[in-house]
C-alpha cells in the first residue's frame, strides 16, 4: 500500500507499486493535465512537483513517490493563477499547448530555487522540456516576466 498526498489530498494506492506516478495521476485520479510524451524522461511533458521539486512522473514509480507531496498543474492555479501562468498568458506562450503543463511546472520549480535566473540558467533548467511548436523564445521571456511578478 502506497500512501501519498496529491494536490493536498491524502491518497492510498494498492496496485502495482512499479506503476509510474504519471499513470496513477492520469488514469486512476483522472488528472489529465499532466501529459504523456515519451515515457522515458526525455521530453518533460509529464513534469509534476514532488515535495516542491520538478520531477518526471513517467519514470517515478509509485513506490518512489510514497510518502511525498505531489502537485500537478491542476492545483497550481486552483486558487487563482500562479504568477508563472499569468506570465504564460501575457506572453501568449503556448501554441498547441501539449508540453506546457510540464514547461510551467518546470519553470515554477526553477524560480523557487533561482528567483532571478540568467538566460543560460533558464536554458539549462528548461533543456529537458521539449516543445515541438518551438515556443522556447516566449518561454524564456515569460520566465523573466514571472520572476519580476514573484519578486
Amino acid at each position, binding site marked *: 500500500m502506497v500512501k501519498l498526498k496529491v494536490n493536498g489530498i491524502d491518497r492510498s494506492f494498492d496496485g502495482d507499486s512499479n*506503476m509510474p506516478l504519471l499513470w496513477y495521476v492520469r488514469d*486512476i485520479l483522472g488528472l*489529465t*493535465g499532466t501529459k504523456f510524451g515519451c515515457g522515458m524522461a526525455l521530453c518533460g511533458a509529464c513534469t509534476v512537483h514532488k515535495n516542491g521539486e520538478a520531477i518526471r512522473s513517467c519514470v517515478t514509480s509509485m513506490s518512489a513517490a510514497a510518502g511525498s507531496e505531489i502537485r500537478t498543474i491542476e492545483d497550481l492555479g486552483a486558487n487563482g493563477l500562479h504568477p508563472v501562468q499569468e506570465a504564460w498568458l501575457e506572453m501568449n506562450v503556448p501554441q498547441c499547448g501539449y508540453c506546457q503543463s510540464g514547461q510551467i511546472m518546470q519553470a515554477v520549480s526553477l524560480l523557487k530555487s533561482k528567483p532571478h535566473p540568467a538566460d543560460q540558467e533558464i536554458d539549462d533548467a528548461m533543456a529537458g522540456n521539449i516543445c515541438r511548436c518551438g515556443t522556447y523564445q516566449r518561454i524564456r521571456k515569460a520566465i523573466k516576466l514571472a520572476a519580476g511578478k514573484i519578486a
Partner: protein
Amino acid sequence: MSQIENVSRRKFLKGVFGAGALILTVRYIPTVRYIPPMWAQGQSTNGQTEADRATLHPNVFVGIQQDGTVCIVAHRSEMGTVIRTSLPLVLADELDADWKRVTIDQAIGDKRYGDQNTDGSQSVRRFYDTMRECGAAARSMLIQAAALQWNVPALDCSTELHAVVHKATGRRAGYGELATAAARLTVPKKEQLQLKKSSEWRYIGKGMTSVDLEKLCTGKAMYGMDARVDGMVYASIEHPPVFGGKIKSLDDQEALKVAGVRQTVSIDPFKPPAAFQPLGGVAVIADNTWAAFQGRKKLKITWDNGPNESYDSSNTRKSSRKLRTSRGS
C-alpha cells in the same frame, strides 16, 4: 496530389546559378475539387449547436442570440494549429462582432459542414472565403432589419462593433436587439454580399490569441488522450516490426496474467494500398495504461514480415543515386 514537373538538371543548375534562386516547379493539382458547404437558408439547422438554436441563424456556421451572444461553429479538428480560433475569427471580423461576445462550438462530424478532413494546411485557405461570406450574410441581415425599423435605406446604415448604426440620425441598435427581426428576412445570396475592405478588419492579421489560451496554461485543455467515458478501458498496440507484416502466431498467456489486463485483440493487417488503414498487430486491453504497457511486453508474437521483409534502405538509396545521374526525359 501534387505533380512535380521535370526540370532538366542542366536547366535547373543554370537556374540556380544564373538567377541565384532555387527553382522547383510544383504544380498543385487537387484530387477532389472542394465544394463549399451550403450556407443558404434551409440548409442551416438541425438544433445540434448553439448556432443552430440561436434566434438568427442564417447559415450553419453562425447564430446570434437575443442577448447579443454570437455563436460560431468551429468545424475543423483542433490539432494544435489554433484553427478553432482562426476560422471563427474570420467570421467574427466580417460580422463586425465583438470577439468578447463570441462563443465557439466545436462541431461534431456532420455532412452539413462538408468535408471536415483537417490536414495539409488547407483549412484557412479553403474556408477563408466561406467564413467571410457567412459573417457578411448575417451582418447584411442585421443592417436590413435596422433599416426597416428606422425606415431608412439600408445603404445609409453601417455597422460598428456589435451594432448597426445610422450615422445621419445617430441611431444605433445592438445585434441582440435586431436578431428577431433579422431572422424574418431572406438570407442574401452570395453575389449580393458586401465584404469588408481589408483596411476595416478588426481581427484578421492583428495577432489575436487562442480562445483556449488559459485552458492550455492550466491543464484544462482536453486532448484526444484525455477523453474519459464511463467504463472506459485502455489499450496499447504492438504493431508488426515490418510495414505490412502480420501475425503468424500469438501466445498471450503471460500477458493475460498481468494484473489489470483484461484481454488481447488481434488486428488484421491492412489490404494494400495502406492509405489510412490501421497497421495491424495485437492490442492489449487493460484497466489502465500502465497495465496495458506491461501486458504488451509479455506478448509472444511470431511475425510474418510479408512482402517488405527484404526491403533494404541502403539498396533504395543506391538505386536513387543511380537515377539521379541518369539522363532525365
